[in-house]
């Protein structure tokens, strides 16, 4: 690696750092909005009221089956058709929150199902109300089971923020593309942008694995 390349990258860094900051803010906003929504959808999709459960399932399944870029463009270019114009950041947050909610609702549901049934029966036998059983017995255990998957999902959401480029949000990829477009040195700046994604995603995945191992200490591992 030549010194020229390094000094070139050094010049790009302030712009790209600004982009990373926008990407991270987008991840934060999408998670803050999407995770509670996901929990809600997970609960509602098991609702005894037919129309409520069907509607939640449709929201979850479309959020998972439709490409993320379509969700973003729907929020940005589609909603103005119904007189709702969002800024690119708000539109990106809306699209990614939908995606987060759809994927996390399945994670929450799996977490609740993974809590042994005896826990629920024992709570009933002790006379706990259904709400208290969920609040104090089931959800805390389900959350522990779901946590690694939720963290993994957050990393994926970070990778998906790159698509906000298509709705003109100045996140990491947009910043890199603009530099390349100005000086026609795409390879160099895109490589740096790629390395920044790597530098965030790989350590984050390592942390998720460590959390997963720590949370499952009490479960004897199968491989021994």
């Amino acid at each position, binding site marked *: 690696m030549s010194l020229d390349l390094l000094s070139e990258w050094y010049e790009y860094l302030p712009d790209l750092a600004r982009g990373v900051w926008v990407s991270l803010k987008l991840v934060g906003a999408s998670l803050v909005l999407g995770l509670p929504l996901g929990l809600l959808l997970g609960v509602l999709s098991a609702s005894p009221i037919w129309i409520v459960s069907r509607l939640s399932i449709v929201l979850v399944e479309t959020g998972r089956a439709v*490409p993320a870029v379509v969700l973003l463009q*729907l929020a940005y270019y*589609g909603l103005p058709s119904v007189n709702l114009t969002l800024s690119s950041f708000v539109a990106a947050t809306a699209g990614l929150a939908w995606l987060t909610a759809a994927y996390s609702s399945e994670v929450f549901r799996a977490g609740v199902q993974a809590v042994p049934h005896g826990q629920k029966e024992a709570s009933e036998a002790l006379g706990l109300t259904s709400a208290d059983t969920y609040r104090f017995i089931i959800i805390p255990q389900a959350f522990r089971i779901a946590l690694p998957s939720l963290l993994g999902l957050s990393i994926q959401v970070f990778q998906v923020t790159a698509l906000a480029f298509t709705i003109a949000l100045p996140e990491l990829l947009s910043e890199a593309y603009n530099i390349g477009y100005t000086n026609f040195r795409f390879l160099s700046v*895109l490589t740096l942008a790629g390395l920044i994604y790597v530098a965030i995603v790989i350590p984050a995945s390592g942390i998720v694995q460590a959390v997963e191992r720590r949370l499952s200490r009490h479960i004897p591992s199968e491989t021994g």
Partner: protein
Amino acid sequence: MEPYLEVLGGLPTTLALSSLSLVIGAIVAVPIMVARGSRFLPLRLATRAFIDVVRAVPPIVWLFIMFFGIAETGVQLTSFAAATFSLGLITSAYLAEVYRGGLLAVDKGQWEAASALGTSRRDIFRFIVGPQAFRVALPAIATFAIALIKDTSLAYTIGVQEVFFHANSQAQVGAASPLLILVTAGAVYVALSLPTAWISRRIDTALRKKVAR
């Protein structure tokens, strides 16, 4: 009706891009998987790093590197080729791990029993371990294939004229309500993933019947 038909006109390109990159990735994944399990430590570590890096970089960044970046080295790939290589690269890294998981899931006793019967390593792989590993890996391969179909929509950013490219351009020129056009495009991707899931379930049931106890 015309703008909507225009969107459907991208279907052959979407299908070609998905299937080509899936086939290329599925083949390239084999040597990667072998290298990933190599006894030679540097090769094993290098392969692992390769897989991690390929998966850590968002697909759209790979598309841009292949299309805008590679062009600077004097090799100008067509947008379709650049998209196929990018998605094929990503597929190979993911499927290498999926294959490995499938092989690891096959009981070690199967290798031992087969070699005790004097079966050659190649035959063990071909007739005993391979089919069992495939059965384990199939659901994960199908899940990945569906994700891949969705990812082909990103190829519009480098000008591949697939389904979403047409939806986007029809919406931009105001040929129809952007909302309806984009919903149509979304529905096309849903419609493509349904048969993929169905075929995978059919194969899975068929394979399961063979080993039903």
